[in-house]
């Protein structure tokens, strides 16, 4: 009996999603000896974290955590990464699953040295999904400067056009392969961990907050891109209408979260995200004034609370208890007016600012697209872990709204659950 449990790793684990949770699960399992497949739908690993400017509360850049994880993956022969890949079907029982995986063509093979000649040759430009379409990029591009795998990609939009031919001709290393086709593979694994992550809630659905109608109202994830050195403005925070550095910014908390008309739950991260983003603005524009409109500020735990307290001491940061329920934009100067009732003083506040940030929440990716596996979901679309049944697990934000720290803790736990499935089978 004992022998069985201590036997060397047999069987493998699939991790669906290569964001921070998926990377953690994969590494934790692989580094104790299990074979792991990472299936990632984007052309790169890193997920939402890769799009951030800084983590809270330590304000270090995400490359800090991602880079070491990429290194560990690179060094670990037991991890196999599939990018541009999606699962099509999961059959079987705990300990013995057969997963069909579809891999979409990248049109660039492993010869790529990231020289950039293909991008120079390519004329077509597309909206960068990584930057929430805030900038145009070449149809032949590197997903972002720290992308792992470090390999260019050709957008399917140019396949069959002159541009694709130009990109191919420009490549000295024979890395552009226009004949690449989508292919399906089948993998046998003992357990699957779904770390499918989240989508920023579609702010355009929050009718009274004007996103999409007014240019200078952006979302918190857009703010991350604007503040990021590899973002569309090179890290300078400029408002979209006229590229002006904003002297006043309003943060609209609970934009769609804790709202039965949108996401009924608290998204957990948005209060901290806005506090963090307030520091982005304050750092770049020392005179800027920040107005944070909230229902309740939620800064859970000692470190977050300390971060909040510190920001409260900043005399240019104003906290107003009252949810913004109406917005307007001045067609002339592009300034945004947010309207709320200050529930402490009982006055209606009409605050004019140069830019407004909607602190939109997280919606599990599985709320929008259910996975082709036998999983249980709660009413909001998060995967409910069924530990009695076992075999299939959800980690990170596929399971609940969470910050990076909790996601990693949870992901480690799910790595163990997956290992237990293999060992106890």
């Amino acid at each position, binding site marked *: 009996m004992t022998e069985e449990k201590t036997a060397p790793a047999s069987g493998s684990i699939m991790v669906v999603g290569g964001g921070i949770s998926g990377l953690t699960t994969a590494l934790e399992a692989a580094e104790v000896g299990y074979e792991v497949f990472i299936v990632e739908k984007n052309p790169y690993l890193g997920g939402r974290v890769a799009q951030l400017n800084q983590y809270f509360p330590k304000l270090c850049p995400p490359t800090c955590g991602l880079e070491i994880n990429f290194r560990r993956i690179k060094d670990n022969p037991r991890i196999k990464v599939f990018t541009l890949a999606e699962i099509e079907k999961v059959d079987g029982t705990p300990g013995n699953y057969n997963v069909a995986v579809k891999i979409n063509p990248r049109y660039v093979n492993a010869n790529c040295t990231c020289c950039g000649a293909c991008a120079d040759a390519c004329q077509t430009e597309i909206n960068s999904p990584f930057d929430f379409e805030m900038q145009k990029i070449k149809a032949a591009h590197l997903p972002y400067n720290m992308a792992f795998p470090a390999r260019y990609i050709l957008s399917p939009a140019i396949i069959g056009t002159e541009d694709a031919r130009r990109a191919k001709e420009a490549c000295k290393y024979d890395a552009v392969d226009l004949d690449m086709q989508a292919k399906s593979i089948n993998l046998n694994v003992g357990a699957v961990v779904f770390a499918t992550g989240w989508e920023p809630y579609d702010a355009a659905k929050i009718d*009274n907050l004007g996103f999409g109608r007014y240019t200078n109202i952006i979302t918190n994830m857009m703010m991350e891109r604007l503040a990021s050195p590899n973002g569309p403005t090179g890290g300078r925070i400029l408002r979209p209408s006229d590229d002006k550095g904003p002297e006043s910014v309003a943060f609209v908390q*609970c934009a769609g979260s*804790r*709202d*039965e*008309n*949108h996401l009924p739950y608290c998204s957990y991260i948005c209060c901290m995200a806005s506090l963090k983003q307030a520091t982005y603005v304050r750092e770049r524009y020392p005179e800027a004034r920040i107005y944070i409109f909230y*229902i*309740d500020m939620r800064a859970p735990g000692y470190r977050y609370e300390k971060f909040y307290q510190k920001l409260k001491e900043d005399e240019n940061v104003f906290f107003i*208890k*009252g*949810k*913004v*329920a*109406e917005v307007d934009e001045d067609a002339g100067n592009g300034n945004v007016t947010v*309207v*709320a*009732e*200050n*529930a402490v003083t*009982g*006055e*209606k506040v009409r605050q004019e600012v140069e830019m407004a940030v909607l602190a939109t929440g997280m919606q599990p990716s599985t709320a929008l697209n259910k996975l082709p596996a036998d999983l249980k979901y709660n009413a909001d679309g998060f995967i409910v872990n069924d530990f009695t049944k076992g075999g299939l697990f959800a980690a990170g934000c596929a399971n609940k709204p969470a910050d990076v720290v909790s996601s990693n803790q949870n992901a480690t736990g799910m790595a163990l659950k997956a290992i237990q499935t293999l060992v106890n089978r």
Partner: protein
Amino acid sequence: MAEAKILEPDVGFVKEVVGLGGETLKKCFQCATCSVACKISPENKPYPRKEMIAASWGLKDQLVNNADIWLCHNCGDCTTLCPRGAAPGDVLGAVRAYAISEYATPKVMGKMVNDPKSLPLLLGIPAVLILVVGLLFNIVGLDWLNFNPVGDQLWGDDYIANYMVDIIMVPTFFAAIGVFALGLKRFIGDMHANALADGKTAKATIDPRGFVQALIKVAPTIMKHNQFSDCGENKERATAHMMVLFGFIALFIVTGCFFFAEWVLHIDGPYRQINPVKWLGNVGGIALIIGTGLMIANRMKKTDQLSSYKDWYLLGLVMGLGVTGMLTEMIRLGGMYDLMAVIYYVHLILVWALFAYTPYSKLAHLVYRTAAMAYNEYAERK
């Protein structure tokens, strides 16, 4: 430090508001979306967020005497945007119903009007009253209640004499006015005290002349239903409400004219169809029926707005008044006199109910809301 305020929660009040249609009030988490969503809410101390917490805490004394609950026209904009499904519009409606029974004496009447179980009794009173008074007149030799009149052109007067109807209705009407006057006196004083305490007005006292001037100033707003059309949701309610309001005004004028004709000029009805006053009466009656019909249809199709007994009571009463009134006329013209008499009798029961119970029913809003709007104007609240 600010002076300590001792709150006096009234749990019974919370329960009553819940019972009157405010069942969602505990869902509120004070995000204040509602105060912004409301297009007619003032800038300083806007409603209904503060009313929601006061209702939830049972702070009756900050609600029943608060003019703001009457400034709300229950359009439902706040309820639509509420992230918690807390329906502030319905809660304020319930608080208003509570305030009405609070200001109308005796309070037990207010309870009865809001209680469906009392409805048979409430309608039974006028039913019996008309018969008893009629029989009493019969005893003294006045033939004012006649179950079997003869003639070939009969009308209501032949069965239930107009003089007797007036003898019953006129005192009832003035009694209702009296109840209103008593309530209003307290209400205006309380409203002012509340506004002073809440920093909503700079006026120290109420100057009656200024108040009347304010009333005159808001009259066109009320007549034109401006507050309705400012609301986002349910703009179409303005039409229905206008039809009912102007229907009532028309019928009130008609009643006054015929009262004058009967008692002063001694001209007996039924009046001819070409009589302009008769036209006004017919138009008023039809407006009443259509307006109420629209309101009922609106409430039936709305799922997010709560309709409770207090709403159906009033709609039923007004619809009943309109229908029995018009039917009485039509059946008389059709010559079915006995049936006409029965429907006329029902009509009179409803008219009496309208007069007698208005100070206790939702319809009392016509007095309290008008007073609150006038006060708001007087207090120069922005």
